[in-house]
């Protein structure tokens, strides 16, 4: 349509005028939810990019020479593994600190009595997720009763929280978009009924369904653009405010720093919403019109 005027006076119905506001509110919520998901994803990515360390414990053996040989072979095997940055034997001092909670400070002579394992830190390259079973297979081929353990205490819990947030945010975002679709369908059907006389006239003038539907579609799209941009702006302001007010993040457990890509993805939300709204309006109008002849 080359004209800005719609054939149907859609902006005159309270429900339709309300549509832009409703869309604004829902887009606001959707963008917020997606921001949560994206920030959580960002945190997860950052966590996974931190180099990860796996500790291999070789049980104590009686003969130090045998032990040394085992250790050397294990290190050689591990350093051959793809993704491993380097390995390091845990020094005796560190070992002492590790056992302190259990045995207290041990005297050097008593220490010799303890069958302490030799610990080996295996550091992976950043971003590599350790394949613990492959690693265990390799180590146990040399030392059958070796113990393998991933270090970094709170890591798992943090990751879990971030993951949960990601799903929650994503789910909420999808839910809001679904609600948006339902709202648009309902409003479109209602205004189709309200304007039945005009719709009738258009059809009598030979307008095909897609022409009439286009009226509702254009109106929904206009509402989506108006409402959506306001909602988006409000949501962005909220996200920026929350992220950049560190006082609000009493516990900065997870690194919540939005990345450029996040902004782009967030900007996709209102675009996607507008698309969904337009399609929903067209769908509702076409289905509503199909009842008429």
């Amino acid at each position, binding site marked *: *349509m*080359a*004209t800005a*005027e719609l*054939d149907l*006076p859609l902006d*005159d119905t309270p429900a339709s005028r309300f549509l832009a506001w409703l869309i604004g509110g829902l887009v606001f919520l959707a963008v917020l939810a997606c921001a949560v998901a994206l920030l959580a994803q960002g945190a997860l990515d950052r966590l996974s990019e931190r180099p990860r360390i796996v500790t291999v414990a070789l049980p104590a053996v009686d003969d130090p020479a045998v032990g040394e040989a085992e250790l050397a072979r294990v290190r050689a095997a591990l350093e051959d593994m793809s993704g491993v940055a380097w390995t390091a034997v845990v020094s005796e001092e560190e070992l002492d600190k590790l056992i302190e909670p259990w045995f207290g400070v041990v005297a050097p002579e008593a220490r010799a009595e303890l069958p302490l394992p030799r610990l080996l830190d295996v550091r992976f390259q950043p971003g590599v997720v350790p394949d613990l079973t492959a690693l265990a297979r390799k180590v146990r081929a040399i030392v059958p009763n070796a113990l393998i353990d991933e270090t970094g205490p709170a890591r798992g819990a943090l990751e879990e929280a971030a993951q949960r947030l990601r799903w929650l945010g994503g789910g909420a975002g999808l839910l809001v978009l679904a609600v948006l679709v339902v709202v648009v369908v309902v409003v479109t059907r209602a205004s189709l009924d309200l304007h039945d*006389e*005009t719709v*009738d*006239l*258009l*059809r*009598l*003038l*030979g*307008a*095909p*369904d897609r*022409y009439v539907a286009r009226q509702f579609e254009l109106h929904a799209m206009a509402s989506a653009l108006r409402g959506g941009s306001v909602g988006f702006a409000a949501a962005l302001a909220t996200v920026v405010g929350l992220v950049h007010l560190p006082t609000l993040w009493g516990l900065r457990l997870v690194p919540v720093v939005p990345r450029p890509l996040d902004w782009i993805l967030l900007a996709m939300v209102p675009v996607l919403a507008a698309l969904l709204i337009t399609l929903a309006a067209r769908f509702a109008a076409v289905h509503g019109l*199909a009842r008429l*002849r």
Partner: protein
Amino acid sequence: MSTGSGMAVDGDRSGATILQLHGVGMRYGSADEVLRDIDLTINAGTFHYLVGPSGAGKTSLLRLMSLSVAPSRGRIVLFGRDVAMVERDELGRLRRRIGVVFQDFRLLEHLSAFDNVALPLRIGGADEEQISSYVSQMLAWLGLAERMEAKPAELSMGQRQLVTVARAVVTRPALLLADEPTSNVEPARVERLMFLFGELHKLGTAVVLATHSRELLRRWAFPVLHLDRGRLIRPVPAGRAAAE
């Protein structure tokens, strides 16, 4: 001049058959039929008056012809297609070849006179340049050049009626159904409208014009379809109808 299917009427230059009604009846809701046993053939390039007392069913018959209501019985064949069998999209295409002057105008209140007239062209997908020239010319010719941007509520009744006529003829339809198109305009303007309808008629448009005006029937002699209480009476020669 009867064809096989009941009563048939045709103009001076009868061409292809545009519309046929076979044993058509129509009712509103569950009331009695307001149209009964209508058999009628309209050929291209013909001009018919449709007359009859108020409430005889003229508007109802035109509604049937413009596919705005379905008959309760009988068959309507439009442009060679049985209307009951036609697909949705095809229905729109058929309707676009019909121009209708509604007795109650049915202008869109929120659109200007210009946009109201442009509506069928826009629906037909014409380009805006063409629309602009067609519509302006048409409205100017009808004496509405200065009221093109007015909304229907800001026009006098006669002006609204002219806009309605303009909307019906601007697409140069193959079938023009005009329901009392001259009831609210002065004699000079009636002349213009009849000239317009006459031109279309000469170009091959089949015209059906419902009217109460004896003057019209007298001055422009065309065959008359006479409706009374929902039935078509035998065709009356134009001269006699006017004298009745």
